[in-house]
């Protein structure tokens, strides 16, 4: 680990350099943070005030009128939020239920064709889902799951699987075999082994998988746009785009900001709370 250097007891030139770098860091922080802050701030302003001064961070009057107007957008924002929540929860549950045993199977068993199957699963990570949307549309139609929230959950789960299986296989691989042997000798069944020994140790991996499943299904736009056609089945990103295209050429910016705030909020909170797992997943997925 690197030593923490303090600003004291160092040459003036270095201290000046540090101050300059701190200033640059701060300016960059403003660039990355301000769009979010502005949007949230404006979502709580009355329309007239937002139009008069969109730059101001604090309004004279705190107002929820934008959120109230968002209730009149299409089926109402809470319907879209509920759809998004259902889809995200469904995707998390299915992804975890399928990827955990799959990762376990790949890590702790040897069966014929195993490495070939694993290579195929990993290769699907290289193939963009955008290129298979046309036949997927037909398959979902055939299954009667087109324009259906559960159909979208199935699609999102499939897109999540390669990464999630990879993540879980690594988690199970990291569990020492001696531990498993000891449990087996003590008479633990396969199921007990997975539930009592493996799962607790693989839990950080599960958290990473669940978090990515949440963010990707919550934020996905193109598949939702294609597969959902009923107004009351839309997800939050589709609602945002509908608000942003306006009604009779007039865009309700206040309602849009309220919608953006509602959509961003869970992602940011989750990221701040579970940052560790997120970056873990990024680097694991990236440095494969």
């Amino acid at each position, binding site marked *: 680990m690197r030593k923490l250097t303090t600003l004291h007891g160092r040459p003036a030139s270095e201290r000046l350099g540090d101050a300059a770098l701190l200033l640059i860091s701060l300016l960059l922080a403003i660039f990355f943070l301000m769009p979010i802050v502005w949007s949230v701030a404006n979502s709580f302003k009355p329309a007239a005030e937002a139009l008069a001064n969109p730059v101001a961070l604090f309004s004279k009057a705190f107002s929820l009128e934008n959120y109230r107007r968002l209730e009149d957008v299409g089926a109402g924002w809470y319907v879209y939020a509920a759809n998004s929540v259902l889809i995200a929860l469904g995707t998390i549950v299915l992804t975890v239920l399928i990827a955990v045993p799959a990762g376990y199977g790949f890590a*702790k068993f040897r069966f014929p064709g195993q490495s070939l199957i694993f290579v195929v699963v990993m290769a699907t990570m290289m193939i963009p889902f*955008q290129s298979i949307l046309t036949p997927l549309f037909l398959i979902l139609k055939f299954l009667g799951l087109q324009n259906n929230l559960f159909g979208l959950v199935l699609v999102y789960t499939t897109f999540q699987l390669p990464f999630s299986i990879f993540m879980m296989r690594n988690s199970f691989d990291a569990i020492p075999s001696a531990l498993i042997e000891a449990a087996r000798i003590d008479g633990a069944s396969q199921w007990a082994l997975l539930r009592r020994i493996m799962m607790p140790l693989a839990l950080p991996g599960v958290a990473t998988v669940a978090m990515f499943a949440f963010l990707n299904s919550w934020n996905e736009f193109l598949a939702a746009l294609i597969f959902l056609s009923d107004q009351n089945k839309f997800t939050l990103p589709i609602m945002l785009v509908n608000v942003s295209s306006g009604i009779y050429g007039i865009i309700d910016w206040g309602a849009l900001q309220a919608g953006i705030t509602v959509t961003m909020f869970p992602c940011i909170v989750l990221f701040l709370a579970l940052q560790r797992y997120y970056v873990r997943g990024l680097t694991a997925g990236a440095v494969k």
Partner: protein
Amino acid sequence: MVSTPKREQARAARAEAADREPHGWLGLVFIAPSMVFIGGLFVIPLVMTAWMSFYHWPLLGRRKFIGLDNYAELLGDTQLWQSLGFTLLYTVLVTAAILVVAFPLALLVDRPLRNTGIFRTIYFMPVVIGFGAASTLWMWLLNPDSGVFSRLLLGLGIVDAAPRPLESFWPALAVVILMVVWKTAGFTMVILLTGLQSIPQEIAEAAKIDGANAFSRFRRITLPLMRNALLLALVLNITSSMLAFDQFFIITQGGPENSTISAVFSIYLASFSSYRLGYGSALSFALLVVLVAISSIQLSFMRQRPEEGR
């Protein structure tokens, strides 16, 4: 159940070999559900994409085998070539822009000072917001009448009239790139940061003692040792930019005059606006081939000298 020594022994033997062979079939049971999903909703559609591309396939009505006609049409489709050219232009510009911003960010947050953790979090935050929310957010920021940017620029006296960037090609492309840099630079920063942190401290220290200045340390040590991280950032940025859709569908809506229709956007238009599913599949398959080619070239380049990047 009474466990005899014999049974105990057998169990131990089984456990000992467990990691290598026995219960192999059980492994298949564990992976079976994932195979159903990946097989049914990934591999089959993939094969179907190739198959459908040989058909005239309307949403309603009868499909007809037309051989390579879709591909012949694709070759002569000027709008398609324009959108492919545009996608490449966008990919080159946005990837360069992201790297130019993300590299300094990585260097900045790699410094052993206090507060770098906070900055890391802040720079990364837009990454977790979806493209839908980010695109609509920037639509507002850039709006000439009620957005923040025109108000700031007017207020500071930099411009006389509110800028309308979406009305001509280059400004429209520039604002989309600015949005994407804002949204994704943090992601590339993290990848580069893992590269930076894999460089042994001793090497940099030794060079410092030997009198190498900061610039030559960066050029001779940091850059070569980060080769893999840089290549990886390149691969990920190029592939995701080649697949860009949301930002052009939402912010520029393909305009002005269809000049910002990306490759995936034209697939969307063919399949789900004109409902020409066969032609859409041909476009998808062509894009797929291009993308797999790009990423395998880049990945093989990365694997050439793997020991250097460590």
